[in-house]
C-alpha cells in the first residue's frame, strides 16, 4: 500500500514528469536493446532450427546426428585443406551476398544478381585472355574492373527503368538475368568457344588467374582457397564503410528506409536507385570474376550453381550487414564443403545438407515467424514479472 500524498502537492511537484521522462527513456533504450538483440539472435536461431530439423531427418533415416555433424565439421574446418574448401565455396557467396545486401539496404531487391554474375564472369574470361602477356599486377586489376563494370552495366538498364518509369526491379533484373545467361551460353558456344568439343571459353593465362593462398603464402598447407576470399573480405569492409561513412551510402540507406523522407531531405531517389543497383551489380559481377579467375580459370555454362540466388539467403541471414555477410557466406560454404565428408564418414546422405540450407533459407525468408516467437517469449516473461 502506497501512502497517498495530498494531490495539490503532487500536482505542483515536477515528480511525475521526471518519472515519465525517465520511463520514456528507459522504454526507448529498452526498445533499442530488444531490437538489436532480436536482430542479432534471429540468424542464430534460424541456423539452430535448421540443424535441429537436419538432425531429425538423420534420426529418421536411422543414423547418428552427432556423428554426422562432427563429420561435417571435420570436412569443413577439420584441417587447412578443409578450411580451404570452405573458404573456396564462401568466396562467390561473399560477393553475391554483398550485392544483394547493398540492394536491400537501398530498398531494392536485386533478384537478378545471377545474370550480373554471369556478365562479370564473361568479362573476366574475355578480358583475362585479352590481357595475356601483361604482368599479373596489371592484368588482375584490369580484369576485376572490367568484370565490375560488366555487372554494373547489366544492372544499369533495370535501374534506369525503375528510376524513369517505375518498372519493378524484381521483374526487370530477373528478365535481364535470363538475357545475360542466354547471352553467355551463346557466346561460350559460339564466338568465344575454346578449341575442342566442349562449349567453354579458353583457359586464362596464369597472369590472369587469382593464385591460391597456399601458392602466395607458401607456409600454408596446400589448399584450394584463392585470393578471391581476401578480396571478398576487403569488399565487405569497403561496403560497410560506404554505407556508414559516405554520402553515397547515407543516401542509399535513407532511400531504403523511407524514400519519401529522403526525397524531402533533398535526396534524388531516382539517382540513388540507379547508383545503388549499379553498385549491387558491380559486386555481383566481381563474384563471377573471382569464380572464373580463382577456380575454373575459364567460363562454362554451369560455372555458377545459382550463387546469385544463394546470395539472397546469405544477405538475409546476415541481416544485410556487410560484415555479417562474410560469416553467413562461410556458413553456407562450410555446409557445402562438409557434405561429402559427412556422407563418406557418417554414411549420411549429403542431401541432408541441402535440407539444412533449405530450412535456413525458409526461416530467414519467413523471419517474422522467429521475430514473432521471440516477441511472444518476451511478452510471457514480462507478464510473469509483473504478476509477482
Amino acid at each position, binding site marked *: 500500500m502506497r501512502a497517498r500524498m495530498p494531490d495539490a502537492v503532487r500536482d505542483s511537484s515536477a515528480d511525475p514528469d521526471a518519472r515519465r521522462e525517465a520511463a520514456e527513456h528507459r522504454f526507448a533504450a529498452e526498445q533499442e536493446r530488444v531490437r538489436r538483440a532480436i536482430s542479432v539472435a534471429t540468424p542464430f536461431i534460424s541456423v539452430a*532450427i535448421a540443424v535441429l*530439423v537436419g538432425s*531429425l*531427418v538423420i534420426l*529418421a*533415416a536411422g543414423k547418428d546426428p552427432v556423428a554426422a555433424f562432427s563429420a561435417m565439421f571435420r570436412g569443413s574446418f577439420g584441417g587447412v585443406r578443409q578450411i580451404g*574448401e570452405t573458404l*573456396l*565455396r564462401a568466396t562467390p557467396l561473399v560477393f553475391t551476398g554483398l550485392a544483394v545486401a547493398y540492394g536491400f539496404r537501398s530498398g531494392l531487391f536485386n533478384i537478378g544478381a545471377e545474370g550480373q554474375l554471369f556478365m562479370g564472369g564473361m568479362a573476366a574470361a574475355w578480358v583475362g585472355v585479352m590481357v595475356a602477356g601483361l604482368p599479373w599486377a596489371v592484368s588482375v586489376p584490369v580484369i576485376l574492373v572490367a568484370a565490375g563494370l560488366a555487372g554494373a552495366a547489366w544492372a544499369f538498364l533495370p535501374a534506369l527503368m525503375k528510376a524513369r518509369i517505375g518498372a519493378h526491379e524484381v521483374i526487370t533484373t530477373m528478365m535481364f538475368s535470363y538475357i545475360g545467361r542466354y547471352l553467355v*551460353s*551463346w557466346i561460350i*558456344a559460339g564466338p568465344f568457344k575454346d578449341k*575442342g*568439343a*566442349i*562449349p567453354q571459353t579458353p583457359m586464362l593465362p596464369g597472369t590472369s588467374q587469382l593464385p591460391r593462398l597456399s601458392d602466395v603464402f607458401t607456409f600454408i598447407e596446400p589448399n*584450394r582457397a584463392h585470393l578471391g576470399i581476401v578480396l571478398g573480405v576487403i569488399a565487405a569492409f569497403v561496403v560497410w564503410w560506404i554505407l556508414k561513412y559516405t554520402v553515397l551510402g547515407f543516401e542509399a540507406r535513407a532511400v531504403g528506409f523511407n524514400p519519401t523522407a529522403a526525397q524531402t531531405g533533398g535526396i534524388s531517389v531516382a539517382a540513388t536507385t540507379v547508383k545503388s543497383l549499379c553498385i549491387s551489380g558491380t559486386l555481383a559481377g566481381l563474384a563471377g570474376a573471382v569464380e572464373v579467375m580463382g*577456380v*575454373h580459370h*575459364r567460363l*562454362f555454362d*554451369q*560455372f*555458377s*550453381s545459382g550463387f546469385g540466388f544463394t546470395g539472397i539467403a546469405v544477405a538475409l541471414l546476415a541481416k544485410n550487414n556487410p560484415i555479417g555477410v562474410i560469416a553467413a557466406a562461410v556458413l553456407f560454404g562450410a555446409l*557445402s*564443403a562438409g*557434405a*561429402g*565428408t559427412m*556422407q*563418406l564418414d557418417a554414411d549420411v*546422405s*549429403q*542431401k*541432408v545438407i*541441402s*535440407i539444412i540450407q*533449405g*530450412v535456413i533459407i*525458409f526461416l530467414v525468408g519467413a523471419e517474422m*515467424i522467429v521475430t*514473432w*516467437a521471440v516477441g*511472444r517469449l518476451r511478452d510471457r516473461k514480462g507478464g510473469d514479472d509483473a504478476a509477482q
Partner: protein
Amino acid sequence: MKSKWSRSLALLLALALIASLSVGCAAPQEPAPQEPAEEKPTTDVKAAMVTDVGGLGDKSFNDMSYAGLQRAESELGVQIEVLESKEPTDYESNINQLANAGFNPIFAVGFLMTDTVIKVAPQFPDVNFGGIDIFFENPTPNVLGLLFKEQEAGYLAGVVAGKLTAMPDVDPRINDKKVVGFVGGMEIPPVQKFEAGFIAGVKSVLPDAEVKSVYTGTFTDQQKGIEAGKSLIEGGADIIFAAAGATGNGTAKACKDNKALFIGVDADQYETIEGIGDTIITSAIKRVDNAVFLTVKDAVDGKLKAGENRVFGLAEDGVGLAPYHDWETKMPADVKAAVDKAIADIKAGTVTVPESK
C-alpha cells in the same frame, strides 16, 4: 487466448511439415541398405562415382552410371559410393575425397568434368579415373575415356523413323509428307553424332525423306524444346528425335500436344517422361550402365587398361534401341525387321554409320 494457441500450433505444424517434407524427399534418395542375401563373391575393389551438377535422379547418365555401380555391387561384391556435385567447385573436392578414401576406379560423369579429371589424375597415379562421355586428347596412364557410338543408336532411331513416316495408315499421327525432325541440345560431338546417325538411318530406308534439324543450344530449358518441337511439327514433321537432355522433354510435350510422335535419347525415356504413353516410339540409348559395369568388372578381374579412350558401340552393347513399350503390338513387322537387319549389318561391319553429316 485461442488465437495465441492456434498461432503456436500453426508454427509447430509448419516446422513439422518442413521436417516431414524433408524426410519424404530424402528417404528415397538414401540407397536402401542391401542385405547380403547369399554369400556374394568378395573383392576389395571399391568403386565410386562423382555426379555432375545434374545429380542423382536425373534419369540419365548419373542415374545410369549409378545403376552400373549398383550392378557391380550386387554381382561382383564391390563396395560403392557416390558423391553428388551441387556446383562445379565440388567436382575436384569430391574426386579428391573419394581418391583419399581409397576408391579405385572413380568415375566422373559428364564432359563438364574433363578439366577436373585431367587436373586431379596426376595427383593420384595409383587410382584409375573413368570419364563418362569424356574424350582425353592426351590420356595419362590412369585415365580412361568412356565414349559411345551415338551415331549407331541414332541410325537405329533413324531406321524406325524413316520406316514409320512412310506408313500413314499405321497411326493417325503420321502424315504423308515424309518429313522427320531432329532436336539437338548444344552442338557438341555426342549430339552431332546422334544427328548424323539419325539422318543416315532415315535415308537408308527412305531416301527421299527430309530430315529437319534444330539445335536449341541448351540441355536444360524445356521451353526451348517445346518451341523447337512446335516449329518442326508446323514444318510437317510427324516424328521427332530429340537428343537434348531435359530440353528434349519439352519436345516430347510438344509432340504429345500437337499429335506427333517422339523418339527419346540416352535412357529409355518411356520410363523417364511422365505420361508420355504412346507418343514415344522408342529411345536411342547409351548404355552408360554397361560401360561402368564392364570397367569395374575389368578392375575386379585385374585387367583394367587405362590410358586410352574406349568407345562402346552396338557390338559392345554400349548403345542400342529401347523397347517399343506401347508400340510393341502395333509396330509393323516390317519396321522391326528393318531394325534387326540394321543391327546385324552394323555388328557385322557391313554398314558403317558416319560420325558427321
